[in-house]
């Protein structure tokens, strides 16, 4: 073994570890609690298929009799452009288990939406004091699905898909609701079965869907070898156009993972801001003043932590810990210490969403805190479903 190989083995050993007895016990109890569902599902699937077949034949026969002869005509160009209303079963209370991924969308001071990675959606109209569960268009969501709302009624959901190696490609479905997530309609689908008709390519992984009003939205895409793309729509998600983020000063994209990933686009009047993070955790802020057609890097975070919170166009926070948090009042040109009572147990940075310049929400692993004074003081609010 060469010294360098020994060094590599040492470095890998140091990252590694043995499972704890508690974890072994947890895995053991998991296996005993849950029976393999495959056989049960097979039986259910057979029965369901039989029932559906009989019901479908019945419905078709009735329809044929009611409508008379079937008329022929051109087939629908594609299902991508023909939105389909979804069935919407009544929401049933479902428990949220912490910790888990949570995503907040705060379109205004009082409205707050919370989406949990296990596939649950909640809405609050009183800053998170009370919550009601809302429906999702499908339960078949990837871990990278995300939601965005512009008020208490209008929102969009990106389902995510199954990523290819190095995120070379990934399908995605985009759904829209206009009635507060009671019903959803699919407005765009990327599945690689043919050329894109909505402007979103199969290439790159899709994430961070965000809308700044009822028609203008953005979807980020990235992979391990190319510049990130930000798709934009101005018709509520039916058609999209992509543009790439340029390399910021001091960073050059290289194949093999040294690329950028863009976050959620935030709108402040005619100015759009988006934060992109490189593979080493450094954050860069990009600005667009032409609706997302071109992006310009304008600042770099004081410390790389993927936790810049954009309160206004020029006032941003980096919540790290109560004595380490930072604030900029000039869009990142200068940073100074910011006194805040924000604290949390988890040793990772929170994701912060401001509804306006004062009211904001921070979440880490499903726990939620609220500020009403721009980030100086924070109050823990109850996570819905817990």
């Amino acid at each position, binding site marked *: 073994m060469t010294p360098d190989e020994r060094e590599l083995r040492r470095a890998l050993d140091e990252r590694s570890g043995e499972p704890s007895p508690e974890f072994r016990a947890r895995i053991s109890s*998991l296996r005993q609690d849950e029976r393999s569902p495959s056989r049960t599902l097979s039986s259910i699937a057979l029965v369901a298929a039989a029932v559906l077949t009989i019901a479908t034949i019945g419905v078709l026969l009735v329809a044929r009799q009611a409508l008379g002869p079937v008329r022929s005509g051109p087939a629908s160009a594609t299902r991508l452009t023909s939105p389909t209303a979804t069935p919407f079963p009544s929401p049933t209370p479902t428990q949220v288990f912490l910790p888990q991924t949570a995503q907040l969308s705060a379109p205004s001071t009082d409205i707050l939406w919370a989406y949990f990675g296990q596939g649950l959606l909640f809405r609050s109209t009183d800053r998170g004091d009370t919550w009601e569960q809302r429906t999702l268009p499908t339960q078949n969501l990837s871990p990278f699905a995300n939601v965005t709302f512009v008020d208490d009624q209008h929102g969009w959901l990106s389902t995510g898909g199954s990523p290819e190696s190095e995120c070379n490609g990934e399908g995605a479905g985009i759904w829209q609701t206009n009635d507060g997530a009671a019903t959803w309609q699919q407005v765009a689908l990327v599945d690689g079965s043919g050329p894109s008709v909505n402007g979103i390519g199969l290439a790159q992984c899709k994430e961070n869907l965000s809308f700044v009003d009822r028609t203008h939205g953005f979807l980020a895409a990235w992979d391990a070898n190319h510049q990130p793309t930000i798709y934009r729509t101005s018709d509520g998600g039916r058609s999209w156009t992509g543009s790439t983020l340029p390399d910021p000063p001091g960073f050059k994209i290289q194949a093999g993972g040294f690329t950028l990933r863009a976050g959620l686009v935030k709108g402040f009047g005619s100015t759009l801001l988006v934060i992109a993070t490189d593979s080493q955790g450094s954050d860069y802020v990009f600005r667009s003043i032409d609706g997302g057609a071109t992006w310009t890097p304008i600042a770099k975070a004081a410390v790389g932590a993927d936790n810049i919170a954009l309160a206004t166009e020029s006032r941003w926070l980096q919540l790290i810990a109560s004595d380490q948090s930072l604030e900029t009042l000039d869009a990142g040109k200068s940073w100074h210490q910011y006194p805040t009572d924000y604290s949390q147990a988890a040793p990772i940075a929170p994701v912060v969403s401001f509804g306006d310049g004062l009211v904001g929400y921070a979440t880490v692993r499903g726990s939620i805190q609220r500020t009403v004074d721009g980030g100086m003081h924070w109050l823990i609010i109850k996570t819905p479903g817990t």
Partner: protein
Amino acid sequence: MSDDHAEHLQQARAGDGRAFGDLLAPVLDPAFRLAMTMLNDRTAAEDAVQEAALKAWRKLDRFRSGAELRPWFLAIVANECRTARRGRWWGVLRFADLDRLQRGAVTDRGWAERADLDAALDRLAQHHLLALSLYYHLDLPIEEVARVLGCSPGGARQRVHRALAALRPAMAMEVDV
């Protein structure tokens, strides 16, 4: 495959959780070690292995009789680790790392070199890190590395070489694969 193994597999497929446990026990350690090297975070590694165990339990019908369980399960774990690293939680720098970054200049040259290598592993693309972890940390034979990666042994050897090349700025490797 031993008779015990085949019997456990048959019982597990029939829905016997205890038999599945017996089947999984010998591969739990390498699975956890792989998740730790991939994610460098105990909580995240536990989550990934737990999710992989549930998926393996649900997909057991697809496991081919006569095949080896370890590469099959490690491939599921590797996939869970890829998913975890794509998640938003992963895009953040841990506070402990902030302390390390803010500690200032390093005086010990050896420490600096080790830190360079550790940082290079942190930055290494997932597929490279996976190849190195399987071959150099779990010490799997190249044929088994190939089964986890879903490629030929020659392809696996090439992937390990490429991973070393990607790591080379941090260390001058001279190894036989």
